[in-house]
């Protein structure tokens, strides 16, 4: 039976959630999105149904959070709770139903990023921990760790500095670069605490994406061990197929029913192949198998 971090929500049935919940965590620029974009098609190729979800993607609060962030006047407690609303909306309406249907749920960040962000902003651990006590314990959490030195060029040469990623609400007096360094360093420190407390598996993400991907693949295969495997049906054997013997009592029924006809259609080319001819072989169109 699946567990939460302490409290459960009304109508949250924890039994019978056979899917797998896999979390990719990491600070901004750690390459989470790149990895998820690689992992999803790979998992699908293996035959697993995949749901990918991530922060601020809830139909309820996603848009509201985006709008609130534009104004740059979102307080730290309000921010934490807005994100919690977004998280719980996705937990109840996306993650749990997908797990119930046996999906592999790949989530771009989970409660840990939210806890780290809140903690950096001075919100008390015990409070934020209590809110997220309703979260499901994932099957695996991979924390993509990148040091600040590697993080900076990645951010500069891709999308540039962002107000919130630079923690400008915390460091209004500094420039984006200084803000980014201080904020991301503080986040990295919080993540180290989280790794110890919540058992996050650290993956060195300072190396190239391909290497990270192969590490993740190996670890994810372990997690998926008890899931059903997709087995490709064996290629049909072309040995002559003998029609099942129909007893005289069943004969007329089988002969007149549609089953007999389908069987005949299937049988004919196979029999022809076996006989090495393209003639009418043993099929006689009337489904009278006994004649042969």
């Amino acid at each position: 039976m699946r567990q939460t971090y302490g409290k459960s929500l009304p109508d949250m049935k924890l039994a019978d959630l056979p899917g797998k919940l896999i979390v990719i965590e990491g600070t901004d620029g750690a390459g989470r999105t790149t990895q998820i974009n690689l992992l999803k098609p790979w998992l699908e190729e293996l035959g697993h149904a995949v749901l990918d979800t991530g922060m601020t993607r809830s139909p309820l609060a996603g848009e509201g959070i985006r709008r609130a962030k534009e104004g740059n006047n979102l307080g730290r407690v309000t921010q934490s709770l807005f994100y919690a609303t977004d998280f719980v909306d996705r937990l109840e309406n996306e993650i749990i139903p997908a797990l119930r249907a046996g999906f592999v749920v790949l989530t771009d960040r989970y409660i840990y990023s939210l806890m780290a962000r809140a903690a950096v902003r001075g919100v008390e651990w015990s409070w934020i921990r209590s809110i997220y006590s309703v979260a499901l314990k994932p099957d695996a959490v991979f924390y993509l760790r990148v040091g600040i030195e590697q993080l900076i060029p990645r951010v500069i040469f891709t999308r540039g500095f962002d107000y919130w990623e630079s923690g400008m609400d915390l460091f209004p007096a500094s420039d984006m670069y200084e803000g980014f360094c201080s904020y991301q360093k503080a986040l990295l420190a919080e993540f180290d605490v989280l790794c110890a407390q919540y058992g996050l598996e650290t993956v060195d993400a300072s190396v190239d994406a391909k290497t990270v991907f192969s590490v993740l693949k190996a670890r994810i295969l372990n997690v998926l061990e008890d899931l059903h495997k997709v087995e490709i049906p064996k290629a049909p054997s072309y040995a002559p197929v003998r029609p099942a013997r129909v007893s005289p009592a069943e004969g007329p029924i089988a002969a007149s029913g549609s089953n007999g006809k389908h069987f005949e259609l299937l049988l004919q080319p196979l029999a022809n192949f076996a006989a090495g001819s393209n003639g009418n072989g043993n099929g006689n169109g009337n489904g009278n198998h006994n004649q042969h």
Partner: protein
Amino acid sequence: MDISSNLRIGPFEVFFPAQPVTPTQQHKSDSRYPGQLFIVEGIDGSGKSTQLLLLHKWLESRGYGVVFSEWNSSPLVKDTTKLGKKKKMLTPATFSLIHATDFADRTEKSILPLLKAGAVVLCDRYVYTAFARDVARGMDRQWVRELYDFAVKPTIAFYFRVPLDTAIGRITAARDCLKFYEAGMDLGLSDDPHESFRMFQGRILDEYERMVPEFGLTVIDATLPVETQQSQVRQIARRHLEVAKELRVRP
């Protein structure tokens, strides 16, 4: 710079007293902030908003700097709440969280700074509304209380106690169309909105009664004439305002 240790200053204030509030502590104002926070609570139809309006007028006439904060009114959050209600997207958990988000924004941007500035802040509904409704919807009692851990403890929390039938009589006389969440229709208690409303309000009333001793709510008998209730409210408020006299806007 290690900001994580510098900035860990915790929620604004510990909302929950270590010991249950005793009647003698009840009327001690919170000395942390110079302002005063008066809030009204009660089920729909208890007459709490009317009483708050009358208190507001009286305080203004006496020259206090008074600010009124309404439940569910944060400009950052209310559109999301509206969307959730309109499309019936809210579960008990997200209903609880979005209201807490709204309340947090009002606390951070208005209630707390105003109290620091010495204003008299009036709130129509406060955390107790959330405690009552969310628990009535099946949320964990302790979880919801911890969710609002950041709230400022009110100077006085007036609870307008009224029997269910009286309140429902007042409500249904005033309007005949009940909204989906207002009637607790999301709980599937009954297909009839009025029946559902009655059952839902009954649960809420039970939660309020439980909170009276837990949080030391100041009970006002809401079946008394409006004027009698208001005299009681003003009398209680005055005791706290005398302390804050020097903070009056006009002499």
